[in-house]
């Protein structure tokens, strides 16, 4: 009886301590943050469903990553990998066995305690045959996942994988017994799902049993919009406090000069590509691809679409990837050079190709610009506008295209140039080998060295034309602080946001 009482007292003390740590001092602005305030978030990316292994898409990553579900590791907004549900881990000398020790005292929203069996189940969900996870192929190196006891997970690999820990940042740890994860959730994060009203809002409530620092706010509501103008109107009328990713450059002006709002430009990983079908004439010739790259004034395109925001990178690797290098000089904007290269490749009289252009912004604008730029070197572009759905069938699946425009959102995705079966069909044994070796490298330094080489080589061969890197612009009411500004991999950690 007494020991029970002692337990209750101890638990109460813990609750009090937890409450104490939740009340932090005033924010930098001087106003006192309101820990009960609900943050209204405006976004263009509504989840398709709530399962990131069943086609939930970018929206569910934004709403749930780190907020509702947690991984063994967390990718911070600055791009660093921190331990999260894994307290610590060890790697065997041959690099093939990873032993993860789980954090104690973690419970799912349903009340069940986290065990190694849940972690095993969660990893196997991503690698399963019917998984729709975009990152499934990154984890194919995993041969087995074992749970020798409740607190330990052992992962065995087929070969070394230097990115394994990074790749585990987007594997959600779910309750192995949970059902219907496409419409419900059972994670360990600081928030639980309140209600999802499809087509309108998704709310997250504080999870009182959270193991870590409780959220700095009383909950969040994501408001979904299909139109950037409507989203900006909502921000202007205080219907939302923050916009996760500003996609309407024209609208920025009304916020930049206004003391009621803060505009921050962070790092994005979204690249706009003019992707050639490297298998087919005329783009099977590197010279033709280089000529096209040199004939297009990327700086002018970026200026006309984003008015000074965003940046040119000249390759597939954004500055937030460790193997970034400024390669904008490799295929400089030079119309005369482009003409010479075309002549050298046997197209002195010019050529004609069809550009498959996704129907949504900014692709049609970019296509029109490319058409007028290429006309100057004698290339005729036929613009063929297609829906996202057609793009997947025609371009991605059937490789039935000459060139296409597409935005590629993920970081560390230069590795697709090592896969000749990928939609653009870049087939270069040397690059494939470097990319394969990079993943099997012993150290991150070795990996960085190899991927730099691969990246330089694809730029020299103009495997694609990397038009520009999108800006990542967050606009928020000025009484808000603690929000992520980079949103790497479409994440949007909401637990740190304070409203005063």
């Amino acid at each position, binding site marked *: 009886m007494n020991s029970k009482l002692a337990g209750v007292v101890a638990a109460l003390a813990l609750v009090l301590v937890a409450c104490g740590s939740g009340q932090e001092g005033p924010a930098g602005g001087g106003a006192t943050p309101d820990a009960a305030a609900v943050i209204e978030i405006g976004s263009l990316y509504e989840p*398709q*469903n709530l*399962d990131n292994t*069943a*086609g939930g*898409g*970018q929206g569910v990553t934004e709403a749930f990553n780190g907020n509702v579900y947690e991984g063994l590791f967390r990718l911070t907004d600055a791009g660093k990998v921190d331990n999260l549900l894994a307290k610590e881990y060890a790697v065997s000398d041959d690099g093939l066995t990873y032993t993860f020790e789980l954090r104690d005292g973690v419970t799912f929203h349903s009340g069940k305690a986290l065990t190694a069996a849940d972690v095993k189940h969660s990893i196997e969900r991503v690698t399963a*045959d*019917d*998984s*729709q996870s*975009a*990152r*499934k*192929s990154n984890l194919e190196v995993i041969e087995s996942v074992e749970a020798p006891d409740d607190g330990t997970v052992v992962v065995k690999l087929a070969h070394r994988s230097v990115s394994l820990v990074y790749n585990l940042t987007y594997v959600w740890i779910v309750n192995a017994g949970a059902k*219907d994860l*496409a*419409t419900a959730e059972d994670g360990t994060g600081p928030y639980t799902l309140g*209600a999802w*009203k*499809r*087509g*309108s*809002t998704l*709310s997250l409530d504080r999870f009182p049993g959270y193991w870590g620092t409780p959220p700095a706010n009383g909950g969040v*509501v994501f*408001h979904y*919009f*299909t*139109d950037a103008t*409507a989203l900006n*109107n*909502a921000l*202007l*009328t205080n*219907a939302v406090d923050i916009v996760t990713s500003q996609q309407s450059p024209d609208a920025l002006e009304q916020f930049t000069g206004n003391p009621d709002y803060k505009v921050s430009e962070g790092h994005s990983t979204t690249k706009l590509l003019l992707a050639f079908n490297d298998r087919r004439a005329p783009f099977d010739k590197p010279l033709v691809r280089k000529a096209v790259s040199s004939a297009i004034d990327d700086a002018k395109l970026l200026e006309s679409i984003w008015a000074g925001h965003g940046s040119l990178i000249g390759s597939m690797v954004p500055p937030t990837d460790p193997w970034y290098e400024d390669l904008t000089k490799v295929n400089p904007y030079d119309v005369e050079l482009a003409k010479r290269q075309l002549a050298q490749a046997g197209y002195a009289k010019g050529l004609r190709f069809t550009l498959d252009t996704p129907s949504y912004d900014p692709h049609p604008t970019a296509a029109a610009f490319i058409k007028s730029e290429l006309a100057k070197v004698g290339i005729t572009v036929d613009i063929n506008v297609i*829906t*996202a*759905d*057609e793009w*997947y*069938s025609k371009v*991605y*699946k059937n490789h039935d295209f000459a060139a296409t425009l*597409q935005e*590629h*959102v*993920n970081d560390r*995705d230069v590795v*697709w140039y090592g896969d000749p079966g990928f939609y653009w069909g870049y087939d270069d044994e040397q690059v494939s080998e470097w990319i394969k070796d990079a993943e099997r490298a012993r150290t991150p330094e070795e990996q960085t060295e190899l991927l730099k080489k691969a990246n330089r080589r694809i730029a020299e061969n103009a495997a694609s034309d990397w038009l520009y890197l999108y800006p990542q612009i967050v606009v928020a009411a000025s009484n808000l602080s603690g929000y992520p500004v980079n949103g790497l991999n479409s994440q949007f950690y909401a637990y740190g946001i304070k409203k005063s």
Partner: protein
Amino acid sequence: MGRYLLRRTAFLLASLLLAASLLFVLLRLLPGDPANALVSVGATPEQLAAARRQLGSDLPLPQQFASWLGGLARLDLGTSFVSKLPVGSEIAARLNVTVPLTLLAFVLAVVVALPVGFLAAWRSDRWYGPLLNGVAQLGVAVPVFWIGMLLVTVFALRLRVLPAGGFPREDWAEPGRALTSLLLPVVTIALVMSASLIRYVRSATVDVLGSDFLRTARAMGESFGCAMWRHGLRNASVPVISILGIELATTFLGAVVVESVFTLPGLGTLLVEGISEHDYPVIQGVLVVSTLAVLLIGFAADVVQRLVDPRLRAHVGGGRS
């Protein structure tokens, strides 16, 4: 009348079945693949095949059709390919917005259009008769989204008296807030709808004003008001009622434009999302429900017309119903 109603109901069900079969077939003829909505850049061909198996979109068409019709007979519209939510409840949630939006706009439009249209015809010799008619013409020519954006700019962004869009999370639990968020969309639709209604009401009234029966009624000593009330309005209303039915149906289907301007989670936006994702169960569900709504509206307009005009009853029912 009883036999007429029975026949009309049978006709309604047959039309619905025919429409459902047609749209099932037509949807399958469209190029594209529902599995595409579930994958993203990085997916392998095996993953695409697995997605198709999961959705059942790799099954033979007759089998898919039979299972869908079977569900329909049990009032089960199936599960969305993409959101994995039951289509029936998704549609019900959207009707919560679209039905009040359409009906309120309809009532407002009728309340405005009837007197204005009548006035435009009756006072066509005064300066404001042609003016009202001209304004109505202009209203027909202006696109509905433009009116919506104008109202947002004035009332939401400048005056800040009404929300720029959205619908409360609590739905109709707080009717005041729900109505506030529907106010601008309702006015937008009503403006456009009344513009075209005014023209129909006006021309129907002009016909009646010049008719022999009205002149005869006046000659027999009835006052203008009395003659108009007993004979004029009744005659003028017959063509107007069928137009009202058509207008109501078009507004219900066309609400999508206004819904997207005001970010309302209505039926139209659900349909647009469904189409872009090849989400067959959602598209089919929305179209079956809207077909049913349109058929019911037509049905109601027919019945009201027969009640108003005894000649229709005599003609169709052979004088005995």
